[in-house]
């Protein structure tokens, strides 16, 4: 009922983030599955960065930095799972560790971005 005056006028009708959330996820999945670090890291950064940007845009947070840090923590946990899997069930020819490292590196980049962002950027405008 958007012709009516009301709430709808305040909704943003466009957002650049969803496209990149949806692009980051498959890139990251392919990267992790086929053990291609460039794709894992890039895809995860794209995915988590877009999620953080969207969280900020939607008004759930004032800045994206905390969301980035939260994503980084989750990625560390996921990477840790891969290390655990290697320690427990490591089999010949299956590179759990390399995949885990890719995820951890992506988390590290995000954490770095989060710290730098919250220290150096003080305007509440988007990145």
């Amino acid at each position, binding site marked *: 009922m958007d012709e009516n*005056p009301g709430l709808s006028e305040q909704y943003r009708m466009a957002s650049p983030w969803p496209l990149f959330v949806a692009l980051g996820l498959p890139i990251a999945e392919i990267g992790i599955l086929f053990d291609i670090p460039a794709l894992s890291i890039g895809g995860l950064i794209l995915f988590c960065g877009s999620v953080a940007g969207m969280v900020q845009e939607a008004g759930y947070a004032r800045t994206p930095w905390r969301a980035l840090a939260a994503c980084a923590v989750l990625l560390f946990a996921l990477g840790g799972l891969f290390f655990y899997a290697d320690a427990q069930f490591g089999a010949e020819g299956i590179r759990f560790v390399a995949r885990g490292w890719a995820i951890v590196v992506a988390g590290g980049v995000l954490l770095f971005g989060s710290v730098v962002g919250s220290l150096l950027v003080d305007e509440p405008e988007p990145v």
Partner: protein
Amino acid sequence: MAVKIFDRETILDLTVNIIPLFIIGFFLGLFLLYQAWGWDTLPSVLMIGLHVVPLVTLALLTYLSGKAIAGSEKTGDVFHQGQALVPGASEKEHGGAEAEPAIAEAGDEDEDEESGTEETRAAE
């Protein structure tokens, strides 16, 4: 909510789901009474479960949806499908007594404003 929700009308509407319930119940009874393949704990318990779980969930959902639908029928105006927001749409017979479109009754301010513009437009 003094109105009785599960009256004759509602029960009649619900018969449509009572029939599959009956079919499942019938087969459950049949398989319990006549056990063509004997009793073994695992498969027989699974067999009962495969009947009972759908039976119970369907009965529950039918009850809840019947309560939601019949309940809002009793308390508000009832329109034909897709017409609740059409200005001047006629109501179903056994709905509320008033013939006035429900939009005008909406409570808060912006709804009033909305219905106002709608009515002026409809009057054009």
